């Protein structure tokens, strides 16, 4: 899954010379927390609702609502490309501790990705948007286990909505979480048990 598939557009932007209270109104109106600061076509910074609130708080003494945006913004923000995969964007945002990534396509601001978009992407990756049921299997970490498992499900004519796997912490076992496009996962689970799989969910009758 690529950023161009999940990024927000159009992007609400603000000029560096604009006032902070104007930036705040723009965020409120469009229900966003991040505004790329753009001079002409060029991205020069990011201003967030936190920047605005911190700098315009009464008693902070330094700035007020009339302060120009460029004095509060983070200059030269970290950016991503439209064809970056979402997992890479997630790691970048965690490592650099930022809440959004402007997406640049050939120097032009093409979109923006926030933590919220990544959470939506996670829900999408787990196949939760389509009706289905969950089947969880625990296997040892060896080649061919997933292939065997999915071919048995396919033999039953059941479509897969998603496949997630992760290694259990502290063991060498892998959990495979399938979302099946079927109301009842029990027949598939029974077949897998007969074939020797350790089915964690659904429970045996």
């Amino acid at each position, binding site marked *: 899954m690529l950023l161009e598939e999940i990024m927000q557009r159009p992007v609400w932007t603000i000029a560096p010379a604009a006032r902070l209270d104007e930036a705040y109104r723009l965020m409120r109106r469009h229900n966003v927390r991040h505004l790329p600061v753009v001079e002409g076509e060029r991205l020069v910074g990011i201003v967030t609702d936190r920047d605005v609130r911190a700098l315009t708080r009464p008693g902070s003494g330094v700035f007020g609502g009339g302060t120009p945006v460029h004095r509060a913004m983070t200059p030269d923000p970290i950016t991503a490309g439209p064809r970056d995969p979402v997992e890479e964007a997630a790691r970048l945002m965690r490592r650099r501790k930022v809440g959004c990534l402007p997406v640049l396509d050939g120097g032009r601001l093409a979109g923006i990705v926030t933590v919220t978009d990544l959470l939506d992407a996670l829900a999408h990756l787990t196949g*939760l948007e389509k*009706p*289905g*049921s*969950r089947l969880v299997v625990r296997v040892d970490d060896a080649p061919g286990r997933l292939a065997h498992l999915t071919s048995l499900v396919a033999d*039953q*004519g*059941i*479509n897969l909505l998603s496949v997630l796997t992760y290694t259990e912490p502290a063991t060498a076992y892998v959990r495979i979480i399938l*979302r099946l*496009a*079927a*109301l*009842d*996962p*029990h027949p598939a689970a029974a077949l897998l048990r007969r074939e020797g799989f350790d089915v964690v*969910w*659904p*429970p045996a*009758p």
Partner: protein
Amino acid sequence: MDCPLVYHPAYQAYDFGPRHPFSPVRLERVWTLLEALGAAPEPVAPPAATPAEVRWVHDDALVAQVEAASDGAPRPDAPRYGLATPDVPAFEGMDAAARLLVGGTLHAARLVASGAAVRVLQLGGGLHHAQQALASGFCVYNDLAVAIHHLRREGLRVAYLDVDVHHGDGVQWLFYEDPDVLTISLHESGRYLFPGTGGVFEMGEDAGTGYALNVPLEPFTQDASYLDVFERVVPHALAWFRPDVLVVQCGADAHAADPLAHLLLTTHGYEALFRRILALADVHTGGRLVLTLGGGYDLDATTRIWTMLALLARGLDLPERLPETWLHRWTDRQGGPPTPTLHDPEAERSVANRAAIEDQNRRVSTRLLELAAPYWH
């Protein structure tokens, strides 16, 4: 109270084949048991819903796909509409069979809206998973949504209550932005069960925000916890919303014997639940109530639960034992004797982590009430 029973023997044409759990035999069993008990009134035979009525809630594209599949020749892209799949296999006459079930629920709604009846039981339907352009989870057309649409057109505010063990997703999505339809679904959590949705944070959208309520329950939830959570949420929601009419999908698959799900209700839990629903309608909607069936895949338990529903709705006494003639007849058909009593003979199962389950259910209902509170004032 007089309670017309909407039913047509042709309901049994909604049949996905002998290996499919959504078996028409359930209806035959309930109907013959009501007859054997002397509790079957002359049923009200409904007209089938017209294609135009179905299109009140469904896209033309879905209806066209169902019509094509009904000739036994589903289009190649039918699975995109949820058709010709393991859950909703195509069969000959599918469109007509599905429209007859829609017609039954719609007819029940018409009887209530016109004042011809106050409480009506539709002995069929409850196909709550069907979405605008998607057949899903054994459901071709959403009879409940068509009926609710009619009630709305008659100017009534509708509360929809769904006690099927699966989330009532189709009805929820079809009225997700509508502040004049409150949907409430109690179900086994989507973390564990189809369709996967129905979390507390699904509360409606736009003008409809706050008008969808979901109570996801832990697997192995038993009577006491279920009824406790019901009591914490449903009466308050109805008092706040002030509906004109209550529509209830009475799935029987929350029963402990159900092979497709993991809640552990008994027939005693169901009796208490149904009595409470009837009483809530009396208090909040002047008794106006449309009841439908729904899921329920243990033939034996489902038959007893829906028979109990019909008896309670019609204000009749519950028998202890079932008639011998009926037991005899179905011993042959079932390949073993049916449970001879209306209620479950065995005591409630003991569950190891019962306290943790009850605690989690309480916390979920508290969370839901906290989330809903801003909309309730």
